[in-house]
């Protein structure tokens, strides 16, 4: 094409401006369920425009490689994204997020290998972005491995904090050296990236599954910041704005998640929670089993049932059966509501997505603040695969490791039915006092199969 350089530049900058605008408007639209879908379409349009116009960037070569990389990376992601089950969404989000972090790190690597022409500020931000992006990359991959079940252990050892601290200091020291211009060439840059990769792994490995909502949103924020910083290095305002918007949004979400567990972000990342938790003291009472037919009767003849789903429902893929049960109860005139704890599942809002997949209308889904006042009026609270988020010890026992965490007051319902695979403890390793209460009955079995038995039991009533 024969466009004048000035015109090309205007075209590119104009397209980036449009992209940034569409991203912000798109995210804004996502704040209500009805407009949300339009929001992602707009953001997608912005991305498409920005990507296409970038081919006009002056002085570029390697177009063949570029197209091949886009086809390979985009194709693989398209294929996996279309196929992934809703229950596996947390690890997919972690994976895509890690890829973004890795891309930001790759940009930084290319810039740091020929840093000529970069000013002090650009060099510093390139290094900081490289570190954050790399940590997000390796950390997200570990999170993916954990959620996917590839890594089953939370690897912890004595003096872990010290080792992590040393690795961090080494990486930071190297980063400072490179930023000051003492570390040119391949050696120091490679070593710096290796240290950053290692730090991301070490930081994520000890974190347990139930803390993943915090970790995933934190790394999302990390990648955003890394993109913003590399955007400054490349003088690309679209990257700065989009990255920064995501960075602060992710930070906000991370804070919300940590608050829902009554812990600080630092505590989630560095406390080795669960390992150190005391046995939680003795509980009085016993576990009282119930069979599905009796449990079905309790719900079918009640006026109001509140269902509390947790990660166990996702594992058992029970969401469709749960909706079937809900419809059956509704057809008998029972009011059914869902109570969702903010950190139920493995990423923010995980349960809502699963219920939406099954077709549960969102107006019967309530969050913690809305629903807690309603538990005393419920005839049955049905707990499916949730544990710590309904443990009344969080309210009552000052010595409990989860004391102070906001919980769903399921124990205040007239009857509580707990669907549980076995007699094991929750993630935190603490006994759940709810299970031992006088008005609690345990329905043992895999979530999906247990709900199927409930449905069967209710159907035979007619």
């Amino acid at each position: 094409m024969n466009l004048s350089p000035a015109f090309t530049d205007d075209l590119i900058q104009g397209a980036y401006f449009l992209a940034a605008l569409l991203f912000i408007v798109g995210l804004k639209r996502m704040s209500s369920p009805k407009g949300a879908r339009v929001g992602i379409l707009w953001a997608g349009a912005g991305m498409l425009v920005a990507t296409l116009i970038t081919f006009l960037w002056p002085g570029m070569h390697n177009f063949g490689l570029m197209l091949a990389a886009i086809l390979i990376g985009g194709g693989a992601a398209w294929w996996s994204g279309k196929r992934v089950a809703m229950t596996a969404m947390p690890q997919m989000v972690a994976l895509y997020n890690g890829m973004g972090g890795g891309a930001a790190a790759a940009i930084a690597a290319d810039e740091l290998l020929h840093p000529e022409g970069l000013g002090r500020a650009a060099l510093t931000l390139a290094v900081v972005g490289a570190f954050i992006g790399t940590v997000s990359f390796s950390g997200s991959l570990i999170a993916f491995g954990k959620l996917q079940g590839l890594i089953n252990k939370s690897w912890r050892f004595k003096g872990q904090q010290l080792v992590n601290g040393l690795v961090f200091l080494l990486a930071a020291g190297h980063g400072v050296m490179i930023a000051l211009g003492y570390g040119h060439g391949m050696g120091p840059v490679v070593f710096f990236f290796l240290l950053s990769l290692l730090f991301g792994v070490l930081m994520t490995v000890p974190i347990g599954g139930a803390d993943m909502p915090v970790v995933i949103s934190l790394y999302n924020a990390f990648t955003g910041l890394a993109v913003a910083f590399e955007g400054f290095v490349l003088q690309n305002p679209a990257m700065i704005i989009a990255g920064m918007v995501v960075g602060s949004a992710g930070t906000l979400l991370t804070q919300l998640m940590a608050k829902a567990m009554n812990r600080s972000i630092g505590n989630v990342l560095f406390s080795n929670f669960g390992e150190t938790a005391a046995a939680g003291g003795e509980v009085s009472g016993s576990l009282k089993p119930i069979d599905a037919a009796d449990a079905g009767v309790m719900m079918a003849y009640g006026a109001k049932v509140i269902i509390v789903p947790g990660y166990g429902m996702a594992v058992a893929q029970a969401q469709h059966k749960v909706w079937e049960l809900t419809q059956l109860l509704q057809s008998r005139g029972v009011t059914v509501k869902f109570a969702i704890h903010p950190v139920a599942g493995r990423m923010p809002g995980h349960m809502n997505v699963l219920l939406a997949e099954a077709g549960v209308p969102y107006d019967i889904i309530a969050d913690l603040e809305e629903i807690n006042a309603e538990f005393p009026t419920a005839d049955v609270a049905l707990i499916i695969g949730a544990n710590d988020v309904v443990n009344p010890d969080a309210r009552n026992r000052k010595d409990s490791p989860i004391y102070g965490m906001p919980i769903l007051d399921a124990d205040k319902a007239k009857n509580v039915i707990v669907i549980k695979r076995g007699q094991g403890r929750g993630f935190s390793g603490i006994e759940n006092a709810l299970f031992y209460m006088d008005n609690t009955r345990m329905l043992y079995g895999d979530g999906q199969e247990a709900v199927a038995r409930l449905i069967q039991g209710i159907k035979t009533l007619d």
Partner: protein
Amino acid sequence: MIDGFIALYIFMLAGFTGYEVISRVPVILHTPLMSGSNFVHGIVLVGAMVALGQADGPVEQIIGFVGVALAAGNAVGGYVVTERMLEMFKDSGGKRGKA
């Protein structure tokens, strides 16, 4: 040129924009929102393209290639899963989504 204080202003305003835009999102949309913002930082793709476009020699080319592939994965994957999730939230009429 975006430099010095101009850059600072952009960082600050974009930061507050993100905070404000997100702060009113209801809990039920937390996942699509996180996934949506995950998609938005896929804009790193344009940076990775420029980096690869200016890369010389095999080492820089390989790094650039990996960067573009990862960034494209971020953008495309983020879009696909977000769109799939929001499709399910589209209406409240109890219409069944596809498994």
